[in-house]
């Protein structure tokens, strides 16, 4: 099992009441696979994950990119700066 820690911000963080979630994957997984695991473990985040993207080491990544469990992973839900 691989363990991933995903940083949360803004509305997603407020919804969960935490600044991160931790999920398990059977093996090293892709961005899209990790999103599924996050929803499985935290169903209330589903709508945020539909519009949200994952960032790895502070950059956006493609859905099929495989993700290092030791990377800094963040869920970037719909932003509202400016």
């Amino acid at each position, binding site marked *: 099992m691989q363990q991933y820690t995903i*940083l949360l*911000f*803004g*509305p997603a*963080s*407020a919804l969960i009441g935490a600044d991160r979630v931790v999920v398990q994957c059977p093996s090293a997984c892709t961005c899209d696979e990790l999103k599924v695991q996050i929803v499985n473990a935290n169903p209330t985040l589903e709508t945020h994950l539909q519009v949200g993207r994952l*960032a790895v080491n*502070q*950059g*956006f990544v493609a859905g099929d990119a495989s993700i290092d469990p030791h990377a800094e992973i*963040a869920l*970037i*839900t719909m*932003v*509202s*700066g*400016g």
Partner: protein
Amino acid sequence: MSVQVRLSNGALSKVADMPTTQGAGARIVFDGIVRPVEDGAKIEGLDYEAYRPMAEQQLAIIGNDLVEKHGLLSMDIEHSYGFVPNFACSFRLVIDSKHRKEGLKAMDEFIDRLKVDVPIWKRAQ
């Protein structure tokens, strides 16, 4: 060609008297101002939460993209994090360019991309 990025705690102070970049025929400054009403409700201001290292990187990526695409001379980008009261400035973009057209176009495009790709979230207070 230079791109400067800063995230600052609280309201942005008045624009500094930066000398214009050599060769500039136009300087355009955009100030984003906090409005006292959000979704129909009166507020005190906005609290900005930023994923700071990534926000800085994304602002720089967008800035460098647009400087290259439009042949701008320089771009200075500043965004608040934390609480910004009504009527204060939470975002400022300064573009120096040879002519106005490319500067105005870049400014519009920058803000479009800011509102999609920069991990900053606001919450009414």
